[in-house]
């Protein structure tokens, strides 16, 4: 195992070493100690490796990653896994704002809560939050799936395109053009698959979730609004 102590090694050195990894690297398991809330840790990794961060990380942790499995044993700041392409990012604590923002693929698991704008402009990522999410989550979400075991804050899914939202708890309010939809069998199957891949207890029933998505009324210009111009 590669152990990197950020009390002794700079973040830049760490990220450079990770960027240099080749696809068939033997350095497949990394442990990062003393992150102390530093920003931009483990960003842009493109290799099938497992990286554990022992402690709280700052902004943009695990952003732009491909293939890697990244585990954070603590909280993360703004923009965890932003623009992730593939792989898995698992936060054991809470995530701050804009978790999984604009991400194209992969799986983001947050064991605690995620604050405002979780999944903003998501483009294909699957996000499973075991706690609750803050306001304006899934704003302009384009595709992918956001699963929330707890509650959602104000304006969920505002101006949403085609992402699927599943919330088990209460939703404080829905954003413009976001509506509740019927939870059909195919959604239950997909939801079960995601819950399983996030390691959620089998006792959590898919039937307890509600599905939300786009009413698709913002897709085209509505002639009734012509007088506004």
């Amino acid at each position, binding site marked *: 195992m590669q152990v990197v102590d950020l009390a002794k090694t700079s973040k830049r050195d760490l990220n450079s070493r990770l960027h240099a990894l080749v696809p068939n690297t033997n350095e497949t398991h990394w442990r990062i100690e003393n992150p102390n*809330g530093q920003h931009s840790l483990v960003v842009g990794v493109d290799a099938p490796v497992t990286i554990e961060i022992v402690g709280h990380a*700052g*902004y943009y942790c695990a952003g732009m990653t491909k293939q890697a499995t990244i585990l954070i044993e603590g909280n993360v700041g703004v923009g965890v896994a932003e623009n992730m392409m593939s792989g898995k990012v698992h936060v054991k604590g*809470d995530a701050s704002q804009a978790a999984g923002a604009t991400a194209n693929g992969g799986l983001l698991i947050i064991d605690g809560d995620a*604050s*405002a704008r979780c999944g903003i402009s998501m483009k294909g990522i699957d996000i499973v939050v075991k706690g609750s999410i*803050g*306001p304006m989550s899934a704003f302009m979400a384009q595709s992918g799936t956001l699963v929330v075991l707890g509650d959602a804050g104000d304006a969920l899914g505002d101006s949403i395109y085609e992402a699927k939202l599943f919330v088990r708890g209460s939703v404080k309010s829905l954003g413009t053009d976001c509506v509740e939809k019927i939870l059909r069998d195919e959604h239950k199957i997909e939801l079960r698959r995601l819950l399983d891949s996030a390691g959620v207890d089998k006792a959590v029933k898919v039937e307890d979730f509600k599905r939300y998505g786009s009413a698709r009324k913002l897709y085209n210009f509505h002639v009734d609004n012509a007088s506004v111009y």
Partner: protein
Amino acid sequence: MCGIVGLFIKDISLQPKLGSLLAGMLAVMSDRGPDSAGFAVYGAGDADRVKLTVRGGSLTGIAEALGKDVTCAIHDNHLILSLPKDRETAVRRWLAAERPDVKIIGSGQRIELYKEVGLPAAVAERFNLETMAGTHAIGHTRMATESAVTTAGAHPFSTGADQCLVHNGSLSNHHSLRRMLEPKGISFETDNDSEVAAGYLSWKLREGATLEQALESSLVDLDGFFTFVVGTENGFAVVRDPISCKPAVMAETDRYVAFGTEYRALVGLPGIEKARVFEPEPARVYAWEHN
């Protein structure tokens, strides 16, 4: 941008370390605010005396002129005057008439307030923050947006006894609020938007609101982006605007409650590894007070 730090001590044995812990937190937030810094420390106080923090101009001769029952402590270019409560009006009048070049930037039973331009670590060192003790303190590192980089524009702002406010963000209706508040007797020293927020809260408190009610009404009346940390004689309170535009993180242990704009600011606190670390929710008032 700007950075805010705050520390509320629960365990009395930690009180002598208040200043050194806050100094560490402030230095880390230099990245968010290298223009200027300031801090308010709630230290020892006497119920029948008042402390005035005075800065600017020449500070020599002030203590001598005010007489024996006024004590003074010089911290670089700030002066802390301690005087009997019943002399406050007379001392303020004397300062205004005889020493118009100095400004009273804070007053109250326990508050001491320091601010200066320059890197936060240098500002903390200049005033010996390291050696200050107390029950709670708040600090600010500034990256100016709405007004000039001057000492007067540095935070915290104090517009009432033992009250102070630090702000991360920017307000867009501060001119109209100022026009509303000035006729009500709230006066301002600077063009700064954050000072208007402090004045707004002082006005609400004066009208009988609790700190919590004052902060809740600020969510309705203030337009713009803000995370506020507000100090009072007994404690501090935190509120963020409804869209939580500016970051904030808090940590709580049996020994303290700490606030930082980023978690990095909290890393040096004792026992932080085991603290409950959480993000304050938008549009919700959090308050901690000593009874």
